């Protein structure tokens, strides 16, 4: 399958949640997957096994080189953590970036910066569009979120999401 041009900059949440679902390889359809250095440490602390296959999945461990004043300005407003800050600095550095995060504040900051951002659920559902997972496989993963992952999602909202996926694909 042809890879898209987007460079993924990953926050810790989706790395952990996708690994909890044994679905980290859903990120490999992108041109490049960058794990900011700070995020790498966070994942290593909370779920080290998620990084065991980092080399096979071509994850690139990278520090931000340019520090955006806009990200610095947004940091206290959205109470951004170190990993989110570095991820956003990298997003500004790479123009065609896609931030993968499950953190609302980080997504708000990304919006302010004009950076595209999506979360774990987006990556899961995208797998149907990209034909890397069947609809039934993705539905199974969505159903497993409450029991198999640390991602919090209101039960009725998850049911709504599942209904939408069933109906739309």
């Amino acid at each position, binding site marked *: 399958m042809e890879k898209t*041009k987007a460079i993924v900059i990953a926050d810790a949440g989706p790395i952990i949640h996708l690994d909890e679902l044994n679905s980290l390889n859903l990120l490999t359809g992108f041109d490049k997957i960058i794990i900011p250095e700070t995020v790498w440490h966070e994942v290593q602390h909370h779920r080290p096994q998620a990084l065991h296959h980092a080399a096979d999945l071509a994850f690139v461990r990278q520090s931000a080189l340019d520090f955006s004043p806009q990200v610095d300005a947004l940091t206290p407003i959205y109470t951004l953590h170190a990993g989110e800050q570095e991820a956003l600095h990298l997003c500004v550095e790479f123009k065609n970036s896609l931030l993968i995060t499950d953190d609302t504040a980080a997504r708000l900051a990304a919006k302010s910066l004009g950076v595209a951002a999506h979360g774990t659920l987006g990556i899961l559902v995208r797998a149907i569009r990209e034909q890397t997972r069947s609809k039934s496989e993705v539905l199974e993963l969505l159903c497993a979120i409450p029991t198999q992952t640390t991602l919090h999602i209101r039960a009725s909202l998850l049911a709504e999401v599942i209904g939408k996926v069933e109906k739309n694909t």
Partner: protein
Amino acid sequence: MTTRVETKIPDQLWQQAQNMVQQGRINNMDALIAEAIRRYVESHQQILSERFIQEDIEWGLHGED
């Protein structure tokens, strides 16, 4: 680090805010505005996070990377 912002606020609301500062209920107008924004952001976290999930599903199903 702080950011300087310029904004327009309805006269009556501004007056109410000034009264609160004068009564010593908060240190100054900067602190009041920052607190108001922080509370707004916090109170909207749940609504926003759910809206972002809806956006994710749309992107996942029909979007482009």
